[in-house]
């Protein structure tokens, strides 16, 4: 059995028989020894995936769809490379405490190493678990400055997260991820967690830090930061988050969490021009935020 800890969410992975289970890439950094508590237990297996009998609850418009199945959910993953039958199907109970991932065996070599939670299932599972345990995944780079304080730089794709990450690395900061960060309440405060889901710079660390502030990135000709107040800050973060939109109670939980987050942590618009002045400017901006 393999245990992963991502954002404080603990997932146990095991496989039937000779299934070639392997954890790949940056996710290897998130493997842990047997933990005290497990949020979700997953078994991977070969099988013959049958198409789902009815219409989906939600269609991503991309590689996956989700169906109601009993009290739980079934996620089917398609790729044009293979054909019309899902290459992978994942079933979970209503509480997402147990799951089973079936790979359609005709599509694969029997000894081909496979990671059952390969994207996007890993993130889908994380968002579902966060909807039940509290927290949210943000489209953001997570930076830990040399004083140990954490700052998020949130943006949609192309918004400058990896560029900002590289600037901070050069200035002695640490990058928990240059693309996806999990934010949760822990011990009465807000913490940000690195994830294996990185951007172009492939920056990913299995660590966490206290979250002191959030910057909403914008491209600009000069560096400028402006405080954003609620409820605008909540709405802006929602467009840079990954709530499970097909699960109403999880969306409610995500909104409630974002409400608490924006009350507890300052959010600022940041227009930046990436140069040698950017980090120094941000440290001044951060110091101003911390004084308030």
């Amino acid at each position: 059995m393999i245990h992963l800890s991502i954002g404080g969410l603990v997932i146990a992975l095991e496989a039937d028989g000779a299934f070639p289970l392997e954890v790949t890439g940056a996710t290897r950094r998130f493997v842990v020894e047997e933990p005290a508590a497990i949020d979700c237990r997953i078994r991977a297996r070969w099988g013959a995936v049958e198409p789902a009998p009815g219409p989906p609850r939600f269609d991503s418009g991309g590689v996956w769809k989700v169906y109601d199945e009993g009290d739980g959910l079934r996620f089917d993953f398609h790729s044009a490379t293979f054909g019309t039958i899902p290459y992978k199907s994942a079933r979970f109970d209503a509480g997402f405490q147990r799951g089973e991932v079936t790979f359609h065996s005709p599509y694969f070599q029997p000894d081909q190493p496979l990671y059952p939670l390969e994207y996007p299932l890993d993130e889908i599972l994380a968002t579902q678990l966060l909807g039940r345990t509290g927290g949210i995944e943000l489209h953001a780079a997570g930076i830990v400055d040399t004083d140990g304080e954490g700052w998020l730089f949130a943006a949609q794709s192309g918004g400058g997260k990896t560029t900002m990450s590289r600037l901070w690395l050069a200035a002695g900061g640490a990058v928990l991820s240059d693309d996806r960060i999990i934010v949760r309440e822990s011990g009465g405060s807000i913490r940000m967690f690195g994830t294996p889901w990185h951007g172009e710079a492939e920056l990913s660390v299995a660590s966490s830090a206290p979250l002191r502030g959030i910057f909403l990135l914008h491209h600009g000709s000069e560096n400028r930061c402006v405080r954003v107040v609620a409820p605008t800050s909540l709405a802006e973060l929602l467009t840079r988050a990954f709530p499970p939109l097909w699960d109403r109670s999880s969306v409610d939980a995500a909104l409630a969490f974002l409400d608490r987050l924006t009350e507890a942590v300052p959010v600022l618009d940041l227009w930046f021009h990436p140069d040698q002045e950017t980090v120094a400017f941000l440290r001044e901006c951060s110091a101003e935020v911390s004084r308030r």
Partner: protein
Amino acid sequence: MEQRDETQPEETKKQYRKPELFRFPLRAEEAVLGFCKTASTGGPNVGNCAIPSACFSQGS
């Protein structure tokens, strides 16, 4: 039967503000984790495209 006093002094009443509607841009294809990062869509980088998977495509 006692009733709650529904009247309020004028000075404690909140001033009426007409509701305003604001739009915030959302990239649906990113938000629903449906796609991998390509030149035209957003998504996380998937380093290993040799294994057939959601992110396998010729030239990715």
